[in-house]
């Protein structure tokens, strides 16, 4: 009788340990529920480094992603925005300095060259021109409406959702972009809500995002 009881207790404890163990493993692994792409870090066609541009060079986010203030999409910068700088900068600064010291011609970085190539090899050949096809990282389902416009205008920092992009060489999705995660913010009071009729309760309406 006693053996049986201990046996049962042992069984229970083992099951508990196994379940918790599996839970911990899943939590720390890359396995996600379908639809959750936390940690998504795809390879991009140009090895563009946010760490260099946003971090070292401290270029403001909205310089390139200028749509965020007035549109649903923050936007991927068109090649002509890249060319504002890269018309003059065609290689890494260090390489440039070394080249200057040695007095040799600066070689064009193969990654930056991809921007030049997108404009076509010759000026007249339109067929040749093709914009870079970036891989989209932050995706939302079709039944969710998200607009950057109100968030930026409310003074929400880009880092709040996108993480510390300035330290990322390759951009990675750091949040799970789930509804619960959205609501974590929408439940909080924010200074931008003080002046308007819109209270935070409105931000929890279903149709704030779903329509």
């Amino acid at each position: 009788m006693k053996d049986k009881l201990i046996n049962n207790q042992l069984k229970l404890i083992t099951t508990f340990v196994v379940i918790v163990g599996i839970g911990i493993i899943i939590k720390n692994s890359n396995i996600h529920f379908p639809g959750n792409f936390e940690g998504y870090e795809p390879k991009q066609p140009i090895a563009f480094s946010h760490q260099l541009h946003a971090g070292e060079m401290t270029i403001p986010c909205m310089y390139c992603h200028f749509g965020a203030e007035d549109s649903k999409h923050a936007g991927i910068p068109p090649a002509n925005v890249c060319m504002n700088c890269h018309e003059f900068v065609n290689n890494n600064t260090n390489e440039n300095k070394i080249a200057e010291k040695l007095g040799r011609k600066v070689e064009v970085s193969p990654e930056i060259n991809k921007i030049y190539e997108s404009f076509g090899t010759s000026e007249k050949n339109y067929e040749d021109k093709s914009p870079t096809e970036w891989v989209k990282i932050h995706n939302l389902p079709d039944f969710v409406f998200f607009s950057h416009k109100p968030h930026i205008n409310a003074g929400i920092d880009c880092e709040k959702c996108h993480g510390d992009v300035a330290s990322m060489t390759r951009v990675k999705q750091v949040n799970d972009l789930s509804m619960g995660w959205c609501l974590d913010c929408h439940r909080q009071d924010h200074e931008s809500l003080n002046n308007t009729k819109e209270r935070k309760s409105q931000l929890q309406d279903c149709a704030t995002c779903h329509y």
Partner: protein
Amino acid sequence: MSDKIKNYYTSFEDSCSSDDCSCTDLPPVAEVEKTSGFTRRSFLKTAGFSFGALFVACTQAPVKKAIPFLIQPEEILPGKAIWYASTSNACEAGCAVHVKNRDGRPIKLEGNPEHPLNQGGLCSQCQASLIELYDSKRILHPLLNGEKSDWQTVDNKIIEKLKNSDKEIVLLTNTVSSPSSENIIGKFKRKYKNISHVQMDEYSYSAILDAHEKNYGKRFIPKYQFDKADLIVSIDADFLGTWISPIQFTKDFQKNRKLDSKNISKLIHIESHMSLTGAKADERIVLSPSEIIKFTKELDKGIQGELTENKYASKIANLLKHNKGKSLVVSGINDVRVQLLVNRINKKLGNINKTLNHKEVSKQYAGSDKDVKVFIEKINNGKIEGVIIAGVNPVYSLPNGKELSKKIKLLKLSVSITDNHNETSECCKIVAPDRHYLESWNDNEIVLGLLSMTQPVLQPFGKNRSLRMSINSWLGKSGNERDLIRNYWRGIFTSKVKTTQTFTRFWNNLVHDGFVKIKPISLKLNAFNDNRPQININKPKGLEYILYRTPQLAFGQHAENPWLQELPDPITKITWDNYVSISPEISKKYKLEKGDVIKIKSGNNTVQLPVFLQPGQQKNTISIALGYGRQGTERFHEIGPNWLEKKPTVEKGIPVGKSVSHFISENINFTGNITSIIKTGKTWNLAMTQTFDSLINPINTSPAIMPKRPFVQETTFKSYKKDPTSGKHHGHPVTTMWKDDHKYKGHHWGMALDISACTGCSSCVVSCQVENNVPVVGKDEVLRKRDMHWLRLDRYYSGKGENVDVSFQAMMCQHCDNAPCEPVCPVLATVHSTEGLNEQIYNRCVGTRFCANNCPYKVRRFNWFEYAREDVMENMVLNPDVTVRSRGVMEKCSMCIQRIQEARFEAKKNGKSIQDGDIQLACQQSCPADAIVFGDLNDPKSKISKLVNSGRHYKVLEELNVRPTVGYLTQVRNREEDSNKGNHHG
């Protein structure tokens, strides 16, 4: 039956629906083999689940690409709409539009509120013309003998024929109101001497033009100013629905119908079938077509001070005499004699240049029946060598179209300039594809002194080219359309505009605003030349017919438009068909019922059509809609969801409805006499929407003592002036079981619909459809009561016999504060917002349809299918801000939540709150009668709050205590009788 246990069945199709059913025994349940342990079945179950789970968990999500512009134009921001001002060429009325462009494609058309003609309103046809741009069956390459060709070959062929012609070549077009086109056609005629230009309008207004020529020496249509008339007598002119420029007229008409002013205008309408104007009329006189002509003659007698025996005529003549200079008599009959009489009446009443503007005259229609007749005679006599047909479809719209098509086929040169295959293009050797107006440049002088601009809003889809550019290349020139128009205006702008501004400025303003006022040419009219026509009409013995246009299909120009085909006729509520409207008297005489197919004979012409019993129809007149039976509508065979029991909207190779163009008389008169009516014995299903969506309790489901529900509440102008609440139904005391604990602290959105203003034009229905990605379902689905319109227009009749009143009530989700749909949803997919909106959350919905069952207004729509979205081209019209609903999901009016959100974001950006008028819903924006008002009920200064407190405001089914936030304003008619008598008091 009574001594047995009750039978339960799920539908009438079950065998148990009859009384003598004896199938009480249930079929035996198959015995399940009982086994213990892990069986084969449970293994399969477990394995299936695990494999499924593994499969779902391990599939990789598709990689999505984000492709930016290479060089982004400064004004374009992905995800943000740009609006372009343009002019609609969907019909000749030339309403000004704002085109909403998202990411390079136009997705919505809205009226330009600053334009003096349509003043922000837009009709259903124009709204729907957007989808024709994305029509995958459009002709995008020139065709030579039906085969794909290129412009060079085609142009060479045409130029060669033009050069070597010895006989006349006719350029047959619709009305050309573009000054630059007129100029280039002039050049064309000068270069090729054999060219002659004939203008025709598919629905002819020639009689008005001809009558004015006889009276004043110039062919013109005056500008009718319904806003300045206190008394309008309309003799079969459906000016609120189809006649000349209905949106402009509706806007103007409403200006003199403001109930807070001392007087409102009175509309007397004389007609033989029920039209939109007849539905709106304060007094509607029902006469047969021949009686109407007689009546006009008598009315003229009465006005001129002669004796008249007709009691209506003498009464109306007296009324008109009391309103000299403030009255307006119009007639839609295409008979010069009638139009001469109308001109005489208006002259005598002193209405010229008061309610009838003879200075800024309309250039919308200039076609001449006489010229067309001469053209037909010439082509029959072999005097013509070639035709170039643009913008019209004479083979379909002329009564002798069939013979014409045979003659065209014999010609050496036959060119059709059209953007779609039609009857005329089929018999032409060369088809030169035209551009959609959203792809092309155009300038229109719609009314003298008002220049409207059309500009392209996207790159053309194919190698099509407008008439102007075609003529340009036949003149041997090249260039682009913009420069052509721009250079034309550069040359003449100093003579047209007074200001000292530079041309670039003038042009930029013109393109930016969409229109500009220019100096009108002086018409130099002759003094009134009185011309009293002789009219002798014998009353016909048998029945008469009248052919009319519906506001949705007009004369078939837009027959290939699925949105318009599925838009229910505002009066009959029938979709996807035309039919013979008959009076109950005719139905009794010939023993006809709804859906019986009859054969109508008039002279040598016959047509077989189903019958529909129409209240308010003249007892000896039948009416048939024009614009059906168009070639090209065979395509709708495929429309609608594909499933096992699908029935096609039309049989393979058969067009929608039947054409009755051959019933038009030789003088282009739309009336005539019926020789015989024969019952064929066949029946036809008419897909009607109101039979199932109406709020009236069906007789077989409700007890007879059930009180009639006052959906439409009506009063007269006199009573309204005494008491603004007159005509309103006295409310029942309602006991509520709901606590009043939901306070709307921020905004509380609400809507009010003015039944008195609504003309039933249905423009809101299409506007809503475009804005909210509402699918088209096809005739079979409509018959199964599964139409998807979020906004429907209920039509209610009152009165008996010929004297029937019509009221329209736009019905959509009422956003009830105590919404009955909400507590029954098991998954909380329909919930209430903090701003008083009833929200439908598609991704939560599991499709139980309990909510639709519990909705007293029957406004919820269920996605029974994944509605056809295979046509990639047509999908470009979808609004990216609104979810495309999938199968098994309930949907309904969201009060254009995407527009509310957009206004909220914009206000936030500017650091303000949303102001009254910032949000314009799709239906509200397009309404030409300004009958829809939306706003914040919590703002006491808002327009909506004022209307709610105006006394006229009531709510439908108020006794249910669902407390809708959508309200209605009573119907007010300007007539003598007291409407309070028959009202139900609770």
